[in-house]
């Protein structure tokens, strides 16, 4: 599948934003959020800003962005519509939570409840994002059980890393968040490795034989394409990446998204505050770059059954 930059930026930025919002909401309920206006302002701006940037980015790939509001209408059948509805709906409890923490200086009682509702909405939105891909049967590399946990844990991981980074800017080191990050990073790495192992060892049930229904007569190979230049289908669904490049990019993604952030986060437990702030910021930025590469690969390595009509023998 063609790796569209707008969709890659959307899923990674909004994933981190919703991850951060989730942890803030949970921390509010637990009573662990410091009543620090500066921290509240930066945390909320980063979280809600990342979500907003993601949503705007996703509308950029539309043929008619001015009609984007119509996408809120079909939540009964469409995961994309559900994602749209929830992404906007999340802003309601999130802004009330922000009013409490930033405006009134309280994250207890009703204000903490708004935080909890924000967290639930944030997780639900990430689930919808993942299910858009999971629900597509023509793309076996998305239509499997690995994709949803990958999306959820990567959002949780990047959210936790940003939470540490913002807190450390205000001289706060909350060891609970560090522990959350130290649990999320290896879990996310394992899930990603599991996903890659899965896509390397399995193939779609569909092949050129079932796509044409001619498989019983022998091997089916494209003899002559219907057109001499590329069409929309080949541009959108026919993106191919060399296996050697995919291997290298997987290694880079693993190192940037998981190995480096893990080491830096471990260092935070022993370094003085200035060192913590530096490590936390670098860990968050490097992890985001790693997840961007991971997300690019998620698209670039996905194969669509339509290419069975254009010379692919397996999808």
């Amino acid at each position, binding site marked *: 599948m063609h790796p569209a930059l707008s969709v890659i930026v959307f899923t990674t930025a909004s994933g981190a934003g919703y991850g951060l919002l989730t942890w803030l909401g949970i921390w509010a309920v637990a009573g662990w959020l410091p009543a620090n206006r500066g921290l509240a302002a930066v945390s909320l701006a980063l979280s809600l800003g990342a979500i907003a940037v993601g949503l705007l980015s996703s509308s950029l790939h539309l043929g008619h962005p001015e009609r984007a509001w119509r996408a809120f209408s079909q939540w009964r059948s469409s995961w994309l519509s559900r994602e749209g509805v929830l992404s906007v709906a999340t802003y309601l409890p999130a802004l009330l939570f922000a009013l409490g923490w930033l405006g009134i200086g309280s994250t207890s009682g009703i204000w903490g409840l708004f935080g909890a509702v924000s967290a639930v909405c944030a997780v639900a939105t990430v689930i919808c994002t993942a299910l858009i891909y999971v629900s*597509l049967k023509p793309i076996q590399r998305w239509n499997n059980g690995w994709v949803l946990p990958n999306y959820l844990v990567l959002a949780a991981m990047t959210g936790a890393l940003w939470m540490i980074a913002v807190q450390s800017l205000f001289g706060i080191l909350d060891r609970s968040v560090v522990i959350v990050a130290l649990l999320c990073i290896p879990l996310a790495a394992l899930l990603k490795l599991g996903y890659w192992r899965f896509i390397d060892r399995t193939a779609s049930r569909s092949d050129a034989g079932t796509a044409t229904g001619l498989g019983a007569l022998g091997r089916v190979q494209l003899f002559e394409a219907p057109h001499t230049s590329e069409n929309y289908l080949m541009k959108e669904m026919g993106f191919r990446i060399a296996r050697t490049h995919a291997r290298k990019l997987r290694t880079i993604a693993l190192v940037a998204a998981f190995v480096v952030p893990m080491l830096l986060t471990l260092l935070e437990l022993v370094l003085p505050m200035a060192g913590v702030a530096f490590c936390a910021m670098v860990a968050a930025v490097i992890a985001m770059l790693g997840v961007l590469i991971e997300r690019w690969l998620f698209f670039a390595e996905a194969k669509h059954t339509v290419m069975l009509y254009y010379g692919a023998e397996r999808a």
Partner: protein
Amino acid sequence: MTSLPAHPSGKRLGLVIDLDICVGCHACAVNCKEWNSGGVAAPLTDLDPYGADPLGVWFNRVHTFEVGEGATGRTVHFPRSCLHCAEPACVTVCPTGASYKRAEDGIVLVDEDLCIGCKLCSWACPYGAREYDYDAGVMKKCTLCIDKIYNETLEEAARVPACVATCPASARHFGDLGDPSSAVSKLVRDRAGYDLMPELGYAPTNKYLPPRPRRGAAEGVGAGAELAPVVAAESGGFLAWIDRLLSG
């Protein structure tokens, strides 16, 4: 509404495509382009049509496959267009309600005024039936010539999709596949018509008829016995000596 019709009428208009007869002339694809360039889905935009890298919207594409290898191999021409599935995920994934399946005849259509051009429907279609119009910013697809098949200003015989009307080999048939007594349903039964990628569960309406078994003997294809394949001479003996003498 992108939910599927709760009460479909049972009528399922669609095509039956005979892969035994198709000669791969692309007339169906060309006539489809011609009709629909002036029809309800118009324009079918072409970008750089006379340049080095033309790119355009077509609803019908004819692929040619080599099936089997060596002496048993054969060439099969394979027209590909929207199958108007009973379970069209292209409809249910649509976030805006632009994609819909008609309850009255099962035709899958796009309302271009509602389409936001997110392209998700094209990802959801295993068959590549939907093409994005880069110029109009909306998704386009086969309408089963809805502006032709119900057009009462046309003679009744002309009220068939453009691809069917133009096929010089009569490899394409149009009718109600929801009616077991229709001519197309009978054809599907008689010729063991099949679904494409049934494993994905889209339950396509359109059916494909397989190539008939090969007829190797000369009489089998109506040729005279003198045209029977030449049998290679055995390596030894009198006939082989004659063969060498004559070949020399």
